[in-house]
């Protein structure tokens, strides 16, 4: 593995604090001949923005799906907030999921619900003591933080791609997660909207002090948001470092991401 200098190494970034996510030897196959992950080791420090790069099909999305239990790992340990998720019962896993936000590639907004209902839906189930007034305030405050308060009564079908991403992000933020997993947050967006989304990720990370794993192919997004970058190749992490250090790497394959 190519190791280069990082801006924000998990151990020194957190001033010695334990990582919020610690993945050890993660393996995942689909059928006999399709091994996607062959022993991924990854840590995420508190407050860190970790960008994961890799070719399509290299297992980036599968890695974060394993983190939230959408896919079950064949082998390896996934330790979140100090507990291995394979040892969690469904109630503990649900409690951990509330602390982890997940922004899907296509935003995955509930298309039968308005923007308001999309945000209220998780909130009503996990914050049962909220009054109607508090619920409304929480929804409006979150929408305001992504700059889309005016879209509160719109249906997802009425939103543009960039707006859908922002609303998806607002729905993720409404539960005030400690970790946010972004699955290609700028895919399918124009360069200006992509930059806006990347800046929003950075702003929200600073505001809410979240830790993030960002999967992307967008190098502008990676440059703007990454404290540390890891590159997946053939089911393992083949390079790790800061944007600047990887950009000047002598490895041809690593270089190909920065051209």
């Amino acid at each position: 593995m190519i190791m280069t200098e990082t801006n924000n190494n998990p151990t020194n970034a957190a001033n010695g604090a334990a990582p919020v996510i610690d993945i050890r030897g993660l393996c995942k196959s689909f059928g006999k001949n399709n091994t996607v992950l062959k022993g991924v080791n990854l840590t995420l420090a508190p407050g860190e923005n970790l960008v994961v790069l890799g070719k399509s099909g290299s297992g980036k999305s599968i890695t974060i799906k394993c983190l939230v239990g959408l896919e079950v790992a064949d082998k390896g340990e996934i330790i979140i907030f100090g507990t291995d998720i394979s040892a969690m019962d469904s109630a503990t896993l649900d409690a951990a999921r509330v602390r982890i936000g997940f922004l899907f590639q296509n935003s995955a907004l509930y298309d039968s619900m308005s923007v308001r209902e999309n945000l209220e839906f998780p909130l009503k189930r996990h914050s049962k003591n909220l009054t109607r007034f508090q619920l409304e305030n929480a929804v409006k405050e979150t929408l305001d933080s992504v700059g889309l308060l005016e879209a509160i009564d719109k249906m997802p079908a009425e939103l543009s791609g960039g707006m859908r991403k922002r609303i998806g992000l607002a729905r993720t933020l409404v539960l005030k997660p400690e970790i946010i997993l972004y699955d290609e947050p700028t895919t399918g967006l124009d360069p200006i909207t992509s930059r806006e989304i990347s800046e929003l990720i950075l702003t929200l990370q600073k505001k809410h002090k979240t830790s993030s794993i960002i999967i992307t192919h967008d190098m502008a997004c990676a440059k703007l948001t990454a404290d540390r970058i890891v590159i997946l190749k053939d089911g393992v992490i083949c390079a790790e470092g800061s944007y600047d250090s990887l950009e000047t790497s002598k490895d041809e394959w690593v270089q190909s991401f920065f051209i």
Partner: protein
Amino acid sequence: MVAHLKSIFNDAGKITLFTNRFFKELFLPPYEIKEFTKQCYIIGYKSLPLVSITGFIMGLVLTLQSRPTLADFGAESWLPGMVALSLIREIAPVITALICAGKISSGIGAELGSMKVTQQIDAMEVSAINPYKYLVVTRILATTFMIPVLVIFADAVGIFGGYVGINIHDDVNMFRYLAQVLSSIDFIDIIPATIKTFFFGFFIGLIGCYKGFTAANGTESVGKAATSAVVATSLTIFIIDMLAVQLTDIFF
């Protein structure tokens, strides 16, 4: 052939596990009362126009088609009773269930299939919301309780259709017609026919949800989920009907 049989048994196993999960989740909190009520409104109230038209036509056509044969035997006075019995025992439950298989089961299959493809079901799961409870349990319960109501409504509209059919050729008073209908039916005609509609409703919801919830990724699978839901539900309705008639024949 072996592969085909294997796939049938595989499907049977999966749907059994899916059904087992329904009964497990049914009694566990939280109870999605609001979503259940919404589904009852969509499945029950919104199907009323379709069921009304179908029921009325069934009663009318059955009367018009049976009348000449009964007239040959001079037994026209049996027409109200015969139409009511045919409708209550067999025609209204089966036709209403088939209509609902086409409208509701395919609708559920397509809706859940598209939610699966667009990762909305995954989004619920990562928000620690049980999608099975919210989407599947509520829909199966709603179909189980609403289909019998729709069938009873179709019975009533069908009997009214029979009244209109008779009055095309004769002049029969409504009260006399209803008196003849009521004198020819018994609770033994109504109860087994109503019990089987709960099973029709259960399977309409179950198969629609199963096909949608287990749809593969890709938009093509949404169409497949909807189509296969209608086909499987229609076949299941006929099988349940055959079993119900056999059991009724044995016990009553």
